Each structure stands twice: as structure tokens, then as C-alpha cells.
């Protein structure tokens, strides 16, 4: 199999630029990378660290091979996100010892949260919101101290509380319950970090109350935050509380006295007219994870407009991808809507030449079309709809490749097999 003409395997970068592996002369580099604020990533050592504005984030959350992290603008609404000793955090039968252990950022700034009673026991904060149902994702980093359980609650009205219980020994959420249908549990997740730390998240539709409380409790037995426990000494370590008004979890954002927003990542301007063969080619993307935002995010080789383009992208329904080739004034030559699990790795290829279009997903040919023209003037690869911005793709990118020929079915299936 021939080498790709253009290969983006996240590895080299500098401010404002993401280097391509191929071609070696730099013609495939993404020459525009912007993010107007600091962001965070998991570095090679497995610790969370800040990355300066306009610097691509190569994230090692999933292991030894980094992904390119592309995220939308997100805000952490939880103030004092790693200062649980601060007065804004209400303590009920809880003792907080500040800066007691090394945190996921490899600094001595994680707090010890200890029970002081077998009775109801929790630390919480309450934020003001509009009196309507809103989508939220709450998350926190937790490390086991004494006791096997950690309980979380999100709550507007008490009657509409949602409870979660995490068990350290099984590294899993063993219980989740929404007490009424006025607040809806969407999903939960657990991600393990260095040194016994876990990031636990819960996505939910709130009730209509004009406040939202987030509660946390260390436990030696399974139970909710306000249930009794056999232990009066159980404890956990906490760091990095985050509340986002959206349906998905993103990288951590530290706050002090105000909510803080991280701006979106924009990555475009790879290649030029000489690099891309409009008459025939193959476009491959390997996506570790796709963010379920409300947009139709695209990865596109285009002519700098929406007229001629080869596109692989998510649908706003967050259950499908759409693959298509368009020419001249945007006329669709071939396209396929395909069901996708956004939370797992997915690989796609589009191959195109005159009257021959093939689409592949995870090792299978999912669509072909034997009629249609080809695009002209392709000159840029971008993580948006047409290299001009708009419909930015957000997720974790393992690999993007372009071949200047339509690779064979056997090659395409081998390349996309997970």
C-alpha cells in the first residue's frame, strides 16, 4: 500500500501550528490553530497541566499515544473548584484539610474531606440558575482515603434529587437514581488517572428550580450523601470540581472567585492546491471520541467554500455521522448517514473518483455509488466545514490521512478495521 500524501498523527506542534508527519516539507501542516485562552491537557506523565493560548493540546488521557484535543467553548460554573476549605463550600459533619495530598496536576493542592459523624455527611455548594430545565454535566476528581464508597448528589428541589454512588474497589458507579421525573439522569462516566485518582461525571437535565446543588460524601458503606454510615472517620481526597451547562464532559478548567471559560479550538489550513488531487483520492479519519455538542461538526477537504468538498462529520442528533462528496455548486455526488457510537473509537474512509465513490466505517464498506462527478479545486484540510470556520469538529483525533488515489477496497477495509 502506498504511503499517504498527507498524514496528521498528533506529534509535533508549536503556537498556532500543528505539524503533519507527511509530507515532510511542511506543506501539510495546519498553519492555523487558535484558542484564545489557556486550556488543560493530560501530559505524557499522566498529569493535568495548563497549555498556553493558541497552542494545540496533545492529550495523553488514553495512554501512550496522544490525541489532538479539540473542544468547544466551555465554562466551569463551579467557583473555588479546588479549594474545598473555602467558605463557599458548605460542610455538614465534614472536616476539610486543605492541600493534603498530590492532586491530578502533580501539585500539593488536593483536599482531604473527612466524616466527623455517622450521621448525614456532605460538602456542597449551591449555584443560582434560571428557573427552567437545563442540561448540566457535573464532575469531580476523587481519590480513596478510608472507606470504599463515594456518594454524589445533584439537586434542585429535594424531591428531584439525583444520587450516584461510586465504589473504589470496583472502580465503577454501582448505583444511580433520579428520585422523580422532573430531573433526568442522562449518563455517568468514570475515568481513572494517575495515583489512584478518578474523575467521575454525571450529565443530567435539571429540574426547574432556580438553584442547583452539588453534594459529595465519603462513606464506608454504600448509601446516599444524607444516609447514615457505620463509620465516623471515612474520608476521600477531592480536587477539581466542575459544573458545565452542557451535555458532555470536557477538559478540566480551574476556577477561583469566578466561573471561568475556555475558548474553542480551531484547526485549519492544511495543504494546498498542489497537494490535493481533486479528481481522485481517499480521506481517512481515526477519531478516538466525538463530543456530543449541538453542532454538525465537520472534517473536510474543500476548495475553501462549501461548493467542492469531501466531508466526514457528525450530525447534531449525536447518534449519526454523515459522509459526503460535493462538487461545483455544492451538488452532492454521494452521501451516507451512518449510526455511530460517539463514545468509542471510530475510523472512516471516503474514496472518490469519477463515477466511483466508496464509504467505509470500522472495516466495512457501508455505501458505494457508481455515478457522480468529482470535486474540483480542493486545496485545504480543516476541522470545520470549508476551512473558513463554522461547523467546527470537536473530539479527540488519533489520525487523519489523505491519499492522492482511490485506495482499494481491501486497503480501505484494512485501514479502518478497529
Amino acid at each position, binding site marked *: 500500500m502506498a504511503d499517504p500524501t498527507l498524514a496528521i498523527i498528533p506529534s509535533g506542534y508549536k503556537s498556532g501550528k500543528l505539524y503533519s508527519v507527511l509530507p515532510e516539507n511542511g506543506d501539510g501542516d495546519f498553519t492555523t490553530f487558535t484558542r*484564545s485562552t489557556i486550556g488543560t491537557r493530560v501530559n505524557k506523565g499522566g498529569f493535568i497541566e495548563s497549555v498556553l493560548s493558541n497552542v494545540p493540546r496533545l492529550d495523553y488521557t488514553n495512554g501512550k499515544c496522544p490525541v489532538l484535543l479539540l473542544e468547544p467553548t466551555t465554562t466551569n460554573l463551579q467557583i473555588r473548584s479546588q479549594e474545598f476549605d473555602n467558605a463557599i463550600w458548605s460542610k455538614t459533619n465534614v472536616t476539610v484539610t486543605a492541600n493534603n495530598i498530590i492532586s491530578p496536576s502533580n501539585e500539593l493542592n488536593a483536599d482531604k474531606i473527612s466524616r466527623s459523624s455517622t450521621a448525614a455527611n456532605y460538602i456542597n455548594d449551591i449555584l443560582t440558575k434560571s428557573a427552567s430545565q437545563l442540561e448540566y454535566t457535573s464532575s469531580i476528581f476523587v481519590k480513596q482515603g478510608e472507606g470504599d464508597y463515594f456518594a454524589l448528589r445533584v439537586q434542585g428541589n429535594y424531591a428531584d434529587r439525583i444520587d450516584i454512588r461510586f465504589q473504589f474497589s470496583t472502580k465503577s458507579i454501582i448505583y444511580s437514581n433520579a428520585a422523580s421525573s422532573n430531573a433526568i439522569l442522562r449518563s455517568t462516566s468514570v475515568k481513572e488517572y494517575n495515583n489512584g485518582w478518578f474523575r467521575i461525571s454525571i450529565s443530567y437535565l435539571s429540574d426547574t428550580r432556580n438553584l442547583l446543588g452539588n453534594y459529595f460524601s465519603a462513606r464506608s458503606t454504600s448509601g446516599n450523601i444524607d444516609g447514615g454510615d457505620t463509620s465516623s472517620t471515612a474520608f476521600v481526597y477531592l480536587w477539581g470540581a466542575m459544573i458545565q451547562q452542557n451535555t458532555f464532559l470536557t477538559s478540566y478548567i480551574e476556577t477561583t472567585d469566578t466561573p471561568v*471559560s475556555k475558548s474553542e479550538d480551531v484547526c485549519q489550513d492544511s495543504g494546498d492546491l498542489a497537494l490535493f488531487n481533486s479528481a481522485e483520492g481517499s480521506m481517512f479519519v481515526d477519531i478516538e471520541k466525538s463530543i456530543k455538542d449541538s453542532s*454538525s461538526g465537520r472534517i473536510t477537504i474543500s476548495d475553501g467554500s462549501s461548493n467542492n468538498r469531501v466531508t466526514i462529520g457528525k450530525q447534531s442528533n449525536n447518534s449519526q455521522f*454523515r459522509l459526503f462528496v460535493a462538487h461545483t455548486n455544492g451538488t452532492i455526488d454521494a452521501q451516507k448517514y451512518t449510526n455511530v457510537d460517539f463514545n468509542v473509537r471510530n475510523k472512516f474512509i471516503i474514496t472518490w473518483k469519477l463515477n466511483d465513490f466508496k464509504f467505509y466505517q470500522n472495516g466495512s464498506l457501508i455505501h458505494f455509488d457508481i455515478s457522480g462527478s468529482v470535486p474540483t479545486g480542493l486545496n485545504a484540510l480543516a476541522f470545520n466545514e470549508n476551512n473558513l470556520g463554522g461547523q467546527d469538529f470537536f473530539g479527540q483525533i488519533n489520525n487523519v490521512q489523505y491519499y492522492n488515489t482511490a485506495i482499494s477496497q481491501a486497503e480501505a477495509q484494512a485501514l479502518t478495521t478497529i
Partner: protein
Amino acid sequence: MYIGKYEFKDQKTAEAKIKGLGVATDEDGNEYPTHKHSIVKLGYIVLERGEYDSEGNETKAPVLSSKYHLDVAWQLEDTYSEDGELIKADHPYGWKSANVELDSNGVHSFYGVDYLTHKF
């Protein structure tokens, strides 16, 4: 980059102003922004935090602003005229009248970006 802080009489007015920055419609009829500015909808911001008992019952109501607030990180740069004269970037048309001047970061910050050194 510049940061602007704005207040509008209501959410509808703010949404209309955001839409005026540019939107397009995708193949499925969904609108999406065509600009690259980061807009954070703060809403009717809390001027004084509420107070609550240990069970989450409100003991003192929060004080909210009567105005709808936005923070914007503008992807705008200063330019130079043909004579080499510096032309400072300014609020996009129609936004200046809603601008709020603060002497601190206020109730919201952009990560690692100080408002006072990045305001218009």
C-alpha cells in the same frame, strides 16, 4: 484578542445581537455561527450570592441583575492604515452601547486572560 462585557435589557435582545454576528444553516436546518468569537451567556448574573441551609433550603435569596449579560472574547486584532497609523480594534457595530466597563474581571473570566489588559 479583546474581551468585552455587555448587558442587554433581556435575553431576546442579546440573542438577536449574537445572531447579527453571522449565522448559517446546515443541511439539516440547524443554525450555526460563522464567526470565531467566544461568546459566554452569563444571563441574569448573581450580584449577591444566596444563602442556604444544610438541606438546600434558601435562607437568603440571591440578588440578580435585571439585565442579561454576555462576555465575549473577540477574535479582533489592531490594524494599521496605509500611513502606518495604528487603528485599534473596536466593538463590532451595535455592541458598544451595551458595553460595561469594569475595573476587575467581574463575575466571569476567560481562562488565563485578564480582562483589564484585553478590554477595548
